[in-house]
């Protein structure tokens, strides 16, 4: 948390003025019982009406000054907190944008979203409350203690005894209830999980007539949660009565001892009233402090998670060169490349080269390393061993932006963004004309359904593309990659939701429209998708076990033959 405070930079003035004015306000507040005491002792006892009016006016003036101080404090605290939050959000967002896939995989994108939104908001409100209240409550407690000492040292000892006791009771109750509430949260998550399961598995549950058991299961988890909540609730139910009793013990002692003090003339009647008031104020301040600790505690947890992001440095960085396609120079070349996530080797010793203009199929079972292989080419990941060259230039030297702009990439998961069809397609080429977009849609076999939409290219795309079917999303994400020129087109198993006929048409269109030097990499699990490629790379368990034409591989590569036979009949395998 402390380390994050550097984001208050530029708001130093605000972060000092805020608490300072809070302090002023606390001073004013502390003086109220003293003024009241003098009204009682001097005004009422001496029958001095002018004095009473003067002091009453002073009370109101103090209240007003307190209001002004407090408004100033709140303003500067809010300004500093939001300046802090804004700077922090910007930094976190930029840091994430600088990550490579390695860091994204390690941290996980869904938690990155939570940290950017929820955690920063929590830290921000922690800073806001901290600036406003962190000094105030301790100051009121301390001030009340000091003033009680000034009024009477002996009676002040009662304060010295009661205040820590109050603090201990509040602390102990929080200490006991926190883990219980945490457990309750865990049990609530369990219920959410059961609900999710029931919703997703409704067909299976009903097919096996298991509704009763599912309800019983939920019921037992639900009653566990109820027990936990009851337990937590009965402990926190002690908070009010216990603190009430403690404060009133203090008041009882004050009255009892105060009676002697007044009798001996050590203090006045008004002083006693003031002391009783301070006792009540300490309780209020302590309760406020305990609420503050909860809020700040939450923001500390958030701060730890945010620091994790800020402390993560990209594991490799961009070069500054670029290169251009040339006939004869391999478009993509792997030289003894190995790659692993953590200690797990996913690709081992891969070497091959692809000439400009070739269409290459990449096939293999789940976990064979197909996606990993194509993800290495735009340098989303850096290989653990070996070198990859694009247009003859090692990827380490390539500038990331130039490298990726030269490629058209269709990721495995078809992701669309909120906006319109056109705004999505223009991700690849911000200045593409409408004709270019239609051309891309044509090739991707998407123009038919886009034409059926009311606003064509300007039709809305909802968040995540949820208003399109899986197959339509895939085709739009292919069109996006085709909307601008590229030297290398990578399709990572991106037609799985299309039926065979559409898939085939798409591949035909791709071949027809492709530039002579444009290289295409087609990743698929379907033999039918890759069998007509110029050459096919066969991966098995991270190793390159075959590279050649369909015919050659059928004869020479047992893994490829096995894959073919599992998907096609014998005659089909041998035909064309």
């Amino acid at each position: 948390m402390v380390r994050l405070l550097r984001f208050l930079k530029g708001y130093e003035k605000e972060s000092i003025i805020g608490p300072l004015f809070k302090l002023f306000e606390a001073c004013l507040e502390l003086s109220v019982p003293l003024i009241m005491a003098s009204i009682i002792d001097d005004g009422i006892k001496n029958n001095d009406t002018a004095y009473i009016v003067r002091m009453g006016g002073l009370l109101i003036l103090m209240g007003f000054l307190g209001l002004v101080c407090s408004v100033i404090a709140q303003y500067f605290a809010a300004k500093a907190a939001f300046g802090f939050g804004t700077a922090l959000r910007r930094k976190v967002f930029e840091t994430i944008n600088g990550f490579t896939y390695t860091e994204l995989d390690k941290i996980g994108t869904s938690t990155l979203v939570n940290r950017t939104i929820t955690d920063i908001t929590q830290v921000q409100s922690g800073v806001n409350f901290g600036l406003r209240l962190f000094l105030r409550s301790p100051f009121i407690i301390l001030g009340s203690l000091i003033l009680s000492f000034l009024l009477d040292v002996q009676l002040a000892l009662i304060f010295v005894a009661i205040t820590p006791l109050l603090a201990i009771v509040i602390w102990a109750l929080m200490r006991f209830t926190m883990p219980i509430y945490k457990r309750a949260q865990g049990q609530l998550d369990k219920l959410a999980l059961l609900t999710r399961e029931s919703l997703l598995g409704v067909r299976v549950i009903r097919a096996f007539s298991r509704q009763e058991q599912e309800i019983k299961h939920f019921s037992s988890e639900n009653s566990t949660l109820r027990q936990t909540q009851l337990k937590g609730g009965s402990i926190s139910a002690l908070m009010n009565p216990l603190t009430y009793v403690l404060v009133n013990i203090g008041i009882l002692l004050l009255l009892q001892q105060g009676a002697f003090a007044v009798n001996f003339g050590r203090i006045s009647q008004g002083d006693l009233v003031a002391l009783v008031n301070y006792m009540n104020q300490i309780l209020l301040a302590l309760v406020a402090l305990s609420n503050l600790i909860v809020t700040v505690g939450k923001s500390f947890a958030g701060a730890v998670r945010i620091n994790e992001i800020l402390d993560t440095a990209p594991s490799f960085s961009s070069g500054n060169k670029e290169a251009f396609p040339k006939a004869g120079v391999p478009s993509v070349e792997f030289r003894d490349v190995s790659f692993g996530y953590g200690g797990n080797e996913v690709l081992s010793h891969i070497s091959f080269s692809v000439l400009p203009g070739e269409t290459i199929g990449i096939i293999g079972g789940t976990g064979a390393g197909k996606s990993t292989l194509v993800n290495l080419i735009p340098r989303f990941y850096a290989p653990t061993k070996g070198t990859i060259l694009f247009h003859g230039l090692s990827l380490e030297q390539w500038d990331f932006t130039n490298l990726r702009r030269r490629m058209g990439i269709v990721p495995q998961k078809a992701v669309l963004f909120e906006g319109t069809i056109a705004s999505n397609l223009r991700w690849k080429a911000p200045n593409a004309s409408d004709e270019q977009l239609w051309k891309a849609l044509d090739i991707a076999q998407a123009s038919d359904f886009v034409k059926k939409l009311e606003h064509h290219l300007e039709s809305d795309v909802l968040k995540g593309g949820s208003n399109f079917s899986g197959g339509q999303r895939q085709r739009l994400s292919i069109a996006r990659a085709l909307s601008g020129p590229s030297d290398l087109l990578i399709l990572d198993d991106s037609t799985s939701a299309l039926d065979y006929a559409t898939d085939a048409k798409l591949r035909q269109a791709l071949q027809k429209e492709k530039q002579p030097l444009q290289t295409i990499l087609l990743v698929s699990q379907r033999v039918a998708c890759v069998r007509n490629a110029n050459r096919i790379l066969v991966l098995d368990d991270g190793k390159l076990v075959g590279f050649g034409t369909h015919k050659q591989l059928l004869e020479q590569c047992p893994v490829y033959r096995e894959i073919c036979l599992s998907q096609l009949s014998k005659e089909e395998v041998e035909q064309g």
Partner: protein
Amino acid sequence: MKRKETFLRLIQFLKPYWTILALSLVFAAGSVALTLYAPILVGDAIDMIVGPGQVSFSSISPLLIQLAIVVAATALLQWAMALCNNRLVCNISSQLRQQSFSHLHQLPVGSLDQLPTGDAISRITADIDQISDGLLLGFSQLFTGVATILTTLGFMLSLHKGIALVVVILTPLSFFVAGFIAKYSFRYFQQQAKVRGQMTTLVEELVGNQKVVQAFCYQKQAESRFEQLNRSMQQCGMKAVFFSSLTNPCTRFVNGVVYAAVGIVGAFVALSGGISVGGLSCFLSYANQYTKPFNEISGVVTELQNALASAARVFDLMDSPAQEPDSPKAMELKNPTGQVALEHVFFSYTPEKPLLQNLNLSVEPGQHIAIVGPTGCGKTTLINLLMRFYEPTSGSITLSGEDIRHFTRDSLRAGWGMVLQDTWLSSGTIHENIAYGVPNASREQVIEAAKAAFAHSFIMRLPQGYDTPIGENGATLSAGQRQLLCIARVMLQRPSMLILDEATSSIDTRTEWKVQQAFDALMEGRTSFVVAHRLSTIQNADMILVMKDGIILEKGNHQQLLEREGFYWRLYSSQFAHQE
């Protein structure tokens, strides 16, 4: 109006607990009265401590003893009240959760298909939590608050009418001030909520799909779009927080004014002998007590409003109509022969979009039916109708000549074995999952089914074999392994009819081979409907239904359909279309 109904309905849930509720109210009233009585005793005591030599020790002691008793009793009552409220709220929220969850299982599959999963979950968890928070605060603060205001007023009036009047007139001021600020800052809060919503969407999209952002070098645009929202967030967020944070200082100021006014007026009244100094001290603490509920009330009201909004969402879920129960005359389906017929079946999910149109089909026991066709042709709809997850709009489906609506749903579904494409497993052990349909199956039976489904060998390689817990929806297993478990689950059930939905994306070759063997073993001698993606399944089927746009376009076996050179032939040959 709607809010009132929701409120009344929520009140209904209190009925079974009326004793606890009544106790809580009694305790609350008692603790309020005693809390307010304490300052009187303190004031009386102070009156006995006037100055040097003017202290009446003999009268102080009984007062202090009384005070001690009152304080102890107050604390006990407060505690008892909190316990009652806690029990009340825990019971109600637990009951709400249970009822809405049970209701989910009463809903027709069609309604559930339309219910967004996340939304339903948040209703059962977050919304009900909100209700219990609101109720707890409502019980513990609203009632005591009102009681405090009324009782304090009574006490103050009995002490001195004039000073009481000052308090009564001035206090609502803080209420108005708070209301004014709330109204003013509400605008900014709305703005802030809007910007936050936009920002969340943007971050979810751009950070959630960071890989795509990087693939298209979109970082700069992303950053500038983010910065724009970030700035407007700073603007309106700061204002919203600042203005709303004025509530406390302002009400504190108003309270300060009330306090000062009581002090001045009280002092004058004391001068004229209207009240004692102790009475004044008592008044001062009442002035504080009286204003407190006014300050808290806006918070409580907001919390209650949120709770009511949540309650409306929960009741909404509970009110969605349940499926029609089985008719009392419904029979148990026993040992179906496997003869299935569809007669003039029409079906549509929405009236505007007719899907299945006049479907006719007759299947003999033991026949294998493969269903093929492009996406959206109605393949899965057919499954929904056979399992009676949905009801046909018109026409009938019969088993051995008897309409399926004449059977109980449970027995009808027990007659079918079903393996779907998305392999759903429950979060139990391997054994529990295989025995899902036959919960009392012995380990031997489970192993036998697993062996028949070619799942035994991989299960034995798991750390705890059949007792390995499989995590949420089988997250620890591969897609192929999950599918094998689903097949084993049906193997154990031994139904006479099958519905199978083959997976489109293939798994690794060796598991794929096993899955295919398992499917074949399963289909042996059973009537089966297979939504087919594999050519081997299609070629071996007794009958292939080629569906397109909800009608059966072609019907026949592989050879017959190829010879016809129709849609099937085109579909079939498209896989081998040459790219030239």
